[in-house]
């Protein structure tokens, strides 16, 4: 492991990140809300820390190993949480404790969208904009952006990209050069965000609201500048735009890029993960719509469909927008909505959670097990759209499930130890580990009132979920550090 190389890249990326403090300064000056100073302060602090890390080792040139990549990614995400919390700590409103500021920043970057702030509507515009911006940066990830912008990372870019990007199969490069791939992904992401903002504008939002919400929609983040979340607008067209773009944000951006490059939307249907994702979402929306209407919770089937569609897509993709009090929906619906966040979107999208592809592989593997009971001698490979899934991938997926649920269980028990009731505890872990945001019970609106220790558990859960557990846990295994 080349620690000086790790330090060099971390410093460089922090310096790069400090530049993102400048747009909020502009927003502050434009709206004259007087809150430019937290961002100038954070720009200086983060920039200086980045430079202090970078300058002593700026001449070190080594090839990055796979291990270095994991270390950089994990450390950078932790650093990002602290760096992103800086302006929130400096600012006098909202007066956040250290714990709360880090929670809010990590929740932003991990595209979770859980908040500890109540009274958003009265905050300065620059602070609100900043929250939306970190969600957007977290969606496609600053590390991918760094790989795109710093081609001199060369081969090292590969190990960063691998450690960073979600999904069980990480070998699919869109272009021969990793920097090009990263640029292509960001390009698609930016275009989708612009389209989303345009949609919101047409639906009647102000430009500030449209951009803010576009940031947290395509990134499936879920922050909103309003306490009432998307429900603030109470508009069916806004809901429709949000539903479509959350869904697209949950699909694979590599797939979006392929479709865009070939100008052929039919390619979506050739992707087994995308089709499963689509039908899954449609089915659950159907069930929810009927459930809401049949239990007379909603008066009209279309009203039922509107809220069901938004809420299902919002939770399925781990966005976390709220337009209706879904925690108090009848029967199994609240629990079901929390549970589908475990399935989440596609690998290569901006969602947290376990990803459709893993569930697909596990379900197919289970089907093979059943067949094996009947035909013990049969050779039945697991296939996805005609291609055999390599056994290593299957066992990796199985291992992922095991670790994911163990982590889930431990964190839930920790939260209960810190005094949360059972419903709040399990939904809080589900909502943070899957990067959803709002949970049930006490954490439906905000995480403000849970104890600090519980907030830290949730913060770790958000990071673990964003890095797909293994990248983070890897640092705690002795093998990783053994020379």
């Amino acid at each position: 492991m080349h620690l000086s190389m790790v330090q060099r890249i971390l410093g460089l990326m922090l310096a790069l990140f400090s530049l993102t403090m400048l747009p909020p300064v502009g927003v502050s000056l434009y709206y004259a809300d007087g809150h430019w100073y937290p961002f100038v302060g954070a720009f200086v602090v983060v920039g200086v820390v980045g430079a202090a890390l970078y300058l002593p080792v700026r001449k070190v040139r080594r090839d990055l190993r796979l291990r270095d990549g994991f270390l950089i990614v994990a450390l950078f995400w932790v650093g990002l949480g602290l760096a992103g919390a800086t302006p929130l700590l400096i600012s006098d409103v909202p007066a956040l404790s250290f714990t709360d500021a880090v929670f809010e920043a990590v929740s932003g970057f991990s595209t979770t969208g859980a908040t500890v702030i109540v009274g958003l509507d009265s905050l300065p515009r620059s602070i609100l904009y900043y929250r939306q911006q970190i969600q957007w940066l977290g969606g496609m990830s600053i590390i991918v952006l760094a790989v795109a912008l710093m081609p001199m990372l060369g081969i090292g870019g590969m190990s960063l990209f691998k450690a960073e990007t979600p999904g069980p199969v990480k070998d699919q490069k869109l272009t021969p050069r990793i920097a090009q791939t990263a640029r292509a992904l960001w390009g698609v992401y930016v275009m989708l965000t612009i389209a989303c903002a345009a949609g919101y504008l047409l639906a009647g939002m102000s430009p500030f609201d449209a951009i803010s919400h576009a940031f947290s929609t395509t990134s499936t983040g879920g922050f909103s500048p309003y306490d009432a979340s998307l429900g603030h607008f109470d508009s069916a067209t806004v809901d429709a735009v949000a539903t479509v773009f959350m869904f697209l944000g949950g699909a694979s951006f590599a797939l979006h890029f392929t479709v865009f490059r070939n100008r052929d939307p039919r390619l979506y249907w050739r992707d087994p993960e995308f089709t499963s994702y689509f039908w899954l979402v449609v089915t659950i929306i159907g069930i929810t719509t009927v459930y809401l209407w049949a239990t007379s919770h909603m008066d009209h089937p279309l009203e039922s469909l509107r809220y069901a569609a938004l809420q299902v897509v919002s939770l399925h993709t781990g966005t976390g927008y709220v337009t209706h009090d879904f925690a108090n929906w009848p029967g199994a619906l609240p629990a079901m909505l929390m549970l589908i966040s475990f399935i989440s979107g596609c690998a290569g999208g901006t969602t947290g959670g376990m990803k459709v592809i893993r569930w697909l592989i596990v379900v197919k593997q289970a089907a093979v097990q059943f067949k094996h009971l009947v035909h013990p001698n049969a050779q039945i490979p697991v296939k996805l759209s005609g291609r055999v899934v390599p056994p290593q991938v299957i066992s990796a997926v199985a291992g992922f499930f095991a670790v994911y649920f163990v982590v889930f269980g431990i964190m839930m028990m920790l939260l209960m130890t810190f005094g949360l009731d059972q419903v709040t505890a399990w939904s809080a872990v589900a909502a943070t580990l899957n990067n959803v945001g709002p949970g049930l019970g006490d954490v439906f609106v905000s995480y403000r009132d849970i104890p600090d220790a519980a907030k830290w558990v949730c913060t770790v859960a958000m990071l673990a979920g964003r890095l797909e557990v293994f990248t983070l846990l890897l640092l705690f295994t002795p093998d990783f550090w053994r020379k």
Partner: protein
Amino acid sequence: MKIIILGAGQVGRTAAYQLSREQANAITVVDTNDEILRDLQDRLDIRTVVGNAGHPAILEAAGCETADMIVALTNSDEVNMIACQVAHSLFGTPTKIARIRSSDYSLRPQLFEEGGLHVDVMISPEQLVTDNVGRLIRYPGALQVLDFADGRVRLIGMRAVKGGQLVGHQLLELRDHIPNRDVRVAAIYRRGRSIKPEGDTVIEEGDEVFFIAARDDIRSMMKELRTEEDPVKRVVIAGAGNIGFRLARALEETNQVKLIERDPRRARRAAEILSRTLVLSGDAADEELLLEENIDDADVFVSLTNAEEANILSAMLAKRLGAHRVMALINRPAYAELIEGGTIDVAISPQTITIGALLEHVRRGDVVRVHSLRRGAAEAIEAIVHGDSRSSPVVGRTIEDIVLPPGTTLGAIVRGDEVIIAHHDTVIEADDHVILFLTDRRHVEAVGRLFQAGARLR
């Protein structure tokens, strides 16, 4: 440049490694073996596609439509040719290079003429290696003999040995030693590191010296670096494979050649075709056999079998038994580094030799010849100067006025039929062929820009 490499064998992998190190290239490698590809992708910044390299669907998936070049390096001549043809007919790929091993194909140019198979460049690694070894044998004492301008100018690499007249002296004394000959020392490697050759540089024993000279001046320069050696007479070759057999055929008219082959049938077949070579059926690592065939009298022992470990061992054995000079064919760069300069005099690396032939077509601008050296770290290139005194930073200037990237030496200029060894006051003209030595190949793009200014860049 977007390049698709077909086949991830030894040569394909080395090509992918070398080419992907240049930022300007985007490499995609196609092979049927997904494990090799996964390993390759872990280490290099390239894309890989699993599948049969000759199939249109696979080539399409590899991005053949937008590729600038495909390089077919699979094991099979037939797949290579078909892949080039498919790339041409379906995707219109501009440059198509194929490895063609069998001389039955390569000796019939009609096959590749208009209306035939669309292969722009054929490379035969075996032939390249054979030529290379042949040149090494003709210049006893040389580690590298590389041709430029159709062999009129050569770059020679050799180790300075006690007894050479220049060893222990400054470079500028060279002119007094050989007054009528003109050579240019392009690079000196001392204990593996390159040092800049200046007039007051003192050549030490064990230095690896690269110099550029016209063909006729080479021998007198070689005498400066080591005691004079007799021309090679007796050559023992181990392995009658593709390379060993070709080498025997090339040398048998001028030298006394013995060819040792383990497989009796292959030995038999070689004996049927070769006329003056003595073909021996047996193991090249068999001490008895080597002694019986007077290995202690052999001027050169070359081990060219497919098994590199066996090559190393049999060459070491031959050296111990008294062979004057031993060479071994070694694929792995790491092995070659371990071995060379020790017991074994020359490590022959087929990939380094082949990669130069590929690089000629990858380089932007008008590059005629590229030789890869020191396992790809250094490079010698022959480029044509374009532009005029206004558009080019080099035309009309003397060499001392040209700012070359660090570690780069301009060794010689070929102007028409004339070979001019570069001096500080030599003036460069348009359409000169310049021969450059780069100790650090990372500067190759800068060098290309320098000499190609005003030229149409591909």
